[in-house]
């Protein structure tokens, strides 16, 4: 679909040029999240200038890229203390930023990925990482985010952010990451 509209847009621009309209005069609307449902107009013969301008549609991939990027300027990693599943106060602003973004963008989906440090059994750590992901999920739910937008999963100890077997590495590995889809 996008390809079609891109080429259609290009055709419109070309025809616009041909009819002597400056590019700056072509209106570009940002209709975030709007789906392209209108029946595709015929690109030829070259329509009147006014019709060509009104047919320029937003490119929808831009919209979904924005959702996958998540909120701007909000950290996507929440760190946890040893043997703890409590979302620390210092991350409350970040949680609120994500909650706001998810509420403003009901089509946005996020995977909360819990992780542990390397100590202990792999399956038990998978369950511990799940607890960390679930703690963040509950914080978001309390702020009114729909559970349909969230999936909390765990990687346990399998995907450390930092290699190493000391506390400086461990503290960076005990985390929940926001992964927007």
């Amino acid at each position, binding site marked *: 679909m996008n390809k079609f509209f891109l080429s259609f847009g290009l055709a419109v621009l070309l025809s616009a040029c041909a009819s002597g309209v400056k590019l700056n005069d072509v209106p570009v609307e940002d209709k975030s999240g709007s789906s392209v449902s209108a029946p595709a107009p015929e690109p030829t013969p070259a329509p009147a200038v006014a019709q060509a301008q009104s047919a320029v549609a937003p490119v929808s991939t831009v919209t979904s890229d924005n959702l996958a990027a998540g909120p701007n300027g909000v950290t996507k990693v929440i760190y946890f203390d040893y043997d703890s599943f409590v979302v620390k106060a210092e991350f409350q602003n970040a949680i609120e930023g994500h909650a706001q973004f998810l509420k403003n963008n009901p089509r946005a989906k996020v995977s909360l990925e819990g992780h542990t440090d390397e100590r202990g*059994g792999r*399956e*038990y750590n998978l369950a511990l990482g799940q607890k960390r992901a679930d703690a963040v999920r509950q914080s978001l739910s309390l702020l009114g985010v729909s559970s349909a937008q969230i999936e909390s999963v*765990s990687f346990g100890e399998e995907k450390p952010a930092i290699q190493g077997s000391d506390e400086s590495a461990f503290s960076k590995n005990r985390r929940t990451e926001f992964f927007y889809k």
Partner: protein
Amino acid sequence: MVRIVFFLFTEAMINFFLPILTAMTLSIGVVSSAWSEVRVEVSGVGITQIPIGIASFKGQDAAPQKPALIVASDLDRSGQFKTMDPGMVLDDTSRPDFVAIRQTNTDALVTGSIQKTADGRFDVKYRLWDVIKGQDLGGQSFLVVASDLRLVSHRIADQVYEKLTGDKGVFSTRIAYVTKQSQRHVLWVADADGENAQAALTSPEPIISPRWAPNGTDLAYVSFESRKPVVYVHDVSTGKRRILANFKGSNSAPAWSPDGKTVAVTLSRDGSSQIFSLDAKGGEPKRITQSNGIDTEPVFTPDGSAIYFVSDRGGSPQIYRTPAAGGPVQRVTFLGNYNISPTLSPDGRWLAYIARNASQYRLHLLELATDKVYPLTDTHIDERPSFAANSKLILYATMVQGKEVLMTTTLDGKISAKLAGQSNNIREPHWGPFLKP
């Protein structure tokens, strides 16, 4: 402490184990030229082992595998035999000179031959002799392709083991494990001695918790290839695999029921990690445990009636037991504040698990009839025990000199052996069931 350690492929291991070897260390010369890197160390006194001669098989020098060496290595690793090479070559038909062999202080002798046939296969024959009575204890011949020569050698070791101990041998069973090298994760299937490894699955994402189905060909495991833990069932003989559990949240810790019809899994779809049972063919999961915290690592009892699992419901991870259909929960471990990864011996007598003590994670054995607990190892980061099908050995992962390795140990902890095979990081072992001959 009485202890035997087998050193396979690395002299460096000696440095690690030296502190636990006593002055009574003696080396047994089971070593022959083809496996001169193999070293067997025995320490201590009081171990009863059957002394057995394994004669070089006639024709094995020209064969792709040397059955006598494989049989001897298998029997040594079991801890129940002391093998030696009588230094003579006898085929399965010639009657040994028992007067001469008695000088070597062996109770039994294995002889045999290996011969390439016109169609390119191999005819392997063996015979077991009672040295003391001078009696023929029977033998067998096998006609196999070259790639099955190891399997046949393991089967010979199984037959010798069963004849002389009364227990079934497990040398022809298979193990599964996972290696990781940079970002490459591989699920392997190998012989019980770690040799003959074949890759069943290669993935850029982690693979954990492989578990053999009772049929010995299906493996259930957890793969992260779709950016979350999903449980698969994989027929290793055909390479066909299917998703068993991919519910919202995490899906992990598969465990087969003894009849192979049900798989218990840990799912987080209801909000916390809880144990469910699933038809092995797929379908709607049925919840087994009910807690607000973590319930995971289920394992069925050999009769299928109950499930042992790990739960943090008491504040720290401990092992519990519940009926397989759900119901009352009974705590099983009480010592320490971190007991995980339960596994039951097929004979139903033993529970092996990992206990953390002063930052050391060590393999422990609990005798279910008495509730007595025995620590089995001196290593620091033991993981994932599983029993051999005959309940006589435990396979587990651990760290030796900063490297992940697989070890086996006898249930008394006296004899441990490092498995051959991968030099990569190697983890997540599971010992498969008896295979049909």
